[in-house]
């Protein structure tokens, strides 16, 4: 197998795992408050939290607005969010990268 296809295979596997975690496994995540929220509640400053300006957004709270089934809605929101992150972070890294690195032939 060439280095190029070996690289592609690994990157593709990494992407598939990430999308499965965001799109499928996330349904089984604990719905209990996280550490900070729990501490805020216990010690009495949770009430100072305000709704985010994006609380009414189409993907707010990892649910796609208008999709009734919570498994599908949550999974879709996770996948859409993951793809947004991939495009933004991947695009930024592409812009910043050094071209023609010494070991370019290994790509």
């Amino acid at each position, binding site marked *: 197998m060439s280095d190029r296809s070996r690289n592609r295979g690994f990157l593709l596997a990494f*992407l598939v795992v990430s999308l499965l975690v965001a799109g499928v496994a996330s349904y089984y995540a604990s719905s209990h*408050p996280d*550490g900070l929220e729990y*501490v805020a509640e216990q010690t009495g400053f949770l009430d100072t939290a305000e709704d*985010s300006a994006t609380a009414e957004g189409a993907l707010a*709270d990892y649910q796609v607005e208008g999709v009734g089934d919570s498994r599908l809605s949550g999974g879709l929101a996770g996948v859409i969010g993951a793809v947004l992150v991939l495009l933004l*972070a991947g695009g930024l890294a592409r812009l910043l990268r050094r071209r023609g690195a010494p070991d370019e032939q290994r790509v």
Partner: protein
Amino acid sequence: MHVPDGFLDAPTSLATGAVAVAGVGIALRGARRELDDRTAPMAGLVATFVFAGQMINFPVGPGTSGHLLGGALAAVLVGPWTAVLCLSVVLLVQALFMADGGITALGTNITLLALVGVGVGWVVFVGLRALLPKRMTSIAPAAAIAALVSVPVAAVAFTGLFALGGQAPVALDTVLTAMLAWHSAIGIGEAVITGLVVGSVVAVRPDLVYGARPALDVRTLEIRTGGVA
């Protein structure tokens, strides 16, 4: 550990916003040294994995959960400056689209999770890497311990910000004790996930692990020596 709007007052949020802008600005310069044609795709994927991993809340006690922060994980895989950018992109998408973490709190969250989380994770990792045998098998345990430490330190950093700009009259020692206790427990989950993921990548593609480069150089030299003998 996503801080919502309202927990901290405006001056504190403005200050963390300025710290975040400065930190990301420095990271944009630093990441140029870490990224090349081969590692750039890895940066996008690591950010994607951290976003996905942060969706998985695991139980840490009765009524409480925690999730991956990913600072140490990202720093070891793609380098600390690139990791700051990865975490910042994750937090930006979460704040803008998922209403996870406040908008005015975005600077606070970048400061805590991207700057403190990545910074502590990387410094502890580099320290352990220097102490442990220069072998590939040292990388995942070093990353796991770095992850373990990074979570309670970020929790202490939050408590520090709460001391400066908290919006409720709550005893600080109570907040500190509770934050440290729960986030030490969450740190164990962070360590397990980080160790497993870094260990898996080291096993199949050690050349794509930024933090493993010194160990990889040693291994390459050993192979060459063996070839001559």
